[in-house]
């Protein structure tokens, strides 16, 4: 039985969205069905696979286990907000470069999980990456090239950071 709808306001990929939703609506369905952001996928019903991973308030979460109403007032980044063809995010570049995907179904979630992983540990070892991927299942790649992709992404992100710093010095101050 559908309950009374509630109004929520969430900043998704930088855009403020205000919608009325059923209180039981899962964040993943809110993103996919209400906002038409279908990059985030559903692979299970039990919070095991990680296909639905997004960033919520700067933390990687499985959006199949979060209610849309819990995101009210918060900020969500999905794969669509990670980067674009014009400007791929280093994580996306890493996955492309190192063949970190095959069917690509798990990939958006795996990349968002990578985001969470690299935020916590910008220079993970191979072992740390594998452990960091505990919450995701990929049936295609055998993980090896996902690990390479994440190593590659970590390097790119570190470089980008260095360049940013250099830029800051040259212009004589940051924001």
């Amino acid at each position, binding site marked *: 039985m559908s309950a009374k709808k509630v109004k929520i306001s969430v900043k998704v990929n930088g855009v403020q969205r205000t919608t009325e939703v059923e209180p039981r609506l899962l964040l993943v369905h809110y993103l996919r069905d209400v906002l*038409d952001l279908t990059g985030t996928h559903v692979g299970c019903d039990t919070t095991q696979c990680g296909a639905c991973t997004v960033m919520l308030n700067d933390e990687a979460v499985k959006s199949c286990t979060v209610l849309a109403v819990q995101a009210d007032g918060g900020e969500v980044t*999905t794969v669509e907000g990670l980067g674009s063809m014009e400007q791929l995010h280093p994580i996306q570049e890493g996955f*492309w470069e190192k063949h970190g995907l*095959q069917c690509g179904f798990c990939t958006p979630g795996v*990349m968002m999980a990578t985001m969470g992983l690299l935020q916590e540990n910008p220079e993970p070892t191979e072992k740390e990456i594998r*452990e960091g991927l505990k919450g995701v299942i990929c049936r295609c790649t*055998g993980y090896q*090239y996902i690990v390479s992709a994440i190593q590659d992404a970590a390097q790119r992100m570190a470089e980008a950071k260095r360049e940013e710093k250099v830029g800051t010095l040259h212009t004589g101050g940051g924001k």
Partner: protein
Amino acid sequence: MASMIGTRIKRKEDPKLITGNGNFTDDIKLPGMLYAAFLRSTHAHARIKRIDVSQAVKHPGVVAIYTGGDLVGRMKSVPTSWYVPGCNLKAKDRSPLAVDKVLYVGEGVAMVVAEDRYAAYDALDAIEVEYEELKAVTGQEAALKDGAPLVHEDVENNLAFLWKAGEVPDEAFANAEVVVRERYYEQRVVPNPMETRAAVAQYNSGSGDMTMWCTSQNPHIHRMVYAEVLDIPESKLRIIAPDVGGGFGAKIGVYADEAVVAYAARHLKRPVKWMEDRKEHFMATNHARDEVIEVELAGKRDGTMTALRVRNIANMGAYLSTMGAGVPTICFGLMVTGAYAIPQAAVEVYGVYTNTTPTDAYRGAGKPESAYQIERAVDAFAREIGMDPVEIRRKNFIPKEKFPYDTAMAVTYDSGDYMLTLDKALEMANYEDLRREQEELRKQGRYLGIGLSTYVELCGLGPSKVAGAIGLQFGQWENATVRVHPSGKVIVLTGASPHGQGEDTTFAQVVADKLGVPLEDIEVLHGDTQMIPMGWGTYGSRTTPVGGAAVAIAAERVTEKAKKIAAHELEVSIEDLEFSDGVFQVKGVPGHQRTFQEIARSANMAWNLPEGMEPALEAQSFFDPSNFVYPFGAHICVVEVDSNTGQIELKRYIAVDDVGRVINPMIAEGQVHGGLAQGIGQALWEGAVYGENGQLVSGTFMDYTMPKADFFPVLETVFTETPSPVNPLGAKGVGETGTTASPPAVVNAVLDALRPFGITHLDMPLTPEKVWKAMQKGRKEA
């Protein structure tokens, strides 16, 4: 331009997938679209006494509810598609939704159609079904026994078929110096692509056109069968497989669910979508393996193997699914002798109905089971006569000079060099050192194990004539069109329908090589029966050796025509032209040339074509190979077993595969990695388990262990290249090598580690508990 074949090139299909622009079936949204959900049987075997939907239909948002009875006479049943000959096969067509009886947990009983996903699920809970539970049987050996519950009342002893091939006289065993007898259980597994099944159907009641988007490995097969089930002319049914999130065999099958969704769309005149949830997938999508395999291997004390007899009791589930009967018979049975020159062999296969989810193809389909039994038996034989597992393989390999080789099972292996892959693997592993290390560690009470698997596979299905002869209801050629636009940009249309294998890139590489045009100028399209009228799809590692070969032939035809036009324009004979890097050059006359792009324009403008030539630059090929292809290789697995916990640590995994010519090594490696993860997954962790009364107790990712990243070491994968003579690319199949080779390599390794405990056999999956218990029982020599 250097040859594109053999080059690591980043995938063309990736940009959309990494930016969230993929288009999977569940991403499709149509105006007025409804949402479907299935009510599935909670019993393994029961009579349906009453279904009451009266409360459910009152739920807000519910548009319609269909039960099995509602569909009788309106839809045809879903047939099996592999009528293996000579085995008195008793196929049972299944009705789209169960009518009087349910035969397994997860069988569809009713479908709700509602305005949205949540409303559909709400209504499911309100459907009342009264069942009269019947005795169920889930194990194939139990099902064969007299007095076992009958899954189909008129199928005696639940025997769906009995298939026999090959012959070995009893003397071959009676007089043999050595005979080993082994019994293996190849456990039931669930393919589990990350995208579950899904369908969206749209019907135009004006034109009668039905469009179905669905998760398919072979849209043309789905079109052929659904046209019949729905009674729609094939010409009015369009199947689109958009991006597909993995298949592994599970999306070959023609299931009833998608057809019921289409039926509802036609009936309600509104688009309908259904996406299977994971729990549902575990119950309702085909399972695989589940075979009890008995092997008898005879030979001499010197290690020569002389005869092989194999019996397979295969659990087919409650129905023979699409490819079901072919898997344990043709796919398994013809490959039982593996890489060895065993002169005599015989196989018998019992296909048994049980109250379980039907089984069908899963990555490797039959070949992993076959490789498992022979590779385990060869190790058992070596152990029996005290020979090293490497030596016994060397002694019995089919020698390189003997190819093409006719095996005792009457198939002809196309090409091979088995010693090459084995030597390479041993070298990579430092085999001798490993054996020494094993000795050393044993003295310290540590248990290292080294396992070998040297396999041959049958793939690249395959000659259509053979397909017909073995009862498969499909052709096995592949279709490709290469179309050149006036600008010189190229479209490749392929009937192969990939779902992660990277064909957009490998096929483009093949075409770039032939036409000398840049990769960016080539688009590979697939997965739409309207755009590509004919084809058979992607399964059984047939895409490159059959589909890719068709692409190469079509591209070659385009080149030939372009050359004729260039010769005409340059007023020279064809022999005076050479074509390289996309330029037709008059030999010895610099500057006298035409680029491929110029010819593309000429061909399409048609202002000045040779007399009698038709305009445009396009060619098609329907390639039907002369034989299957037989990839092979040698894998070595190194494990350490913790004697306190039974925990198995994978220390190294070395795979040397020969898949003929490799088009894109990066993509091929990815295929090997993925296959290994699934094969190793089966060896160590995966297993579908039925409990009492036929309940599926491993029905979610919480109780079915899927391999994760931290389960694996770095996989060491290498290719050797022995081209196949049966297709112009020289390619064999790569997708299934890892799944086929790894289970025996891993199990042989673990058993090698457990030798001091006197353990010679354990069934997969080798869970720590199972290993620990065996060690407790076993004696320790050390």
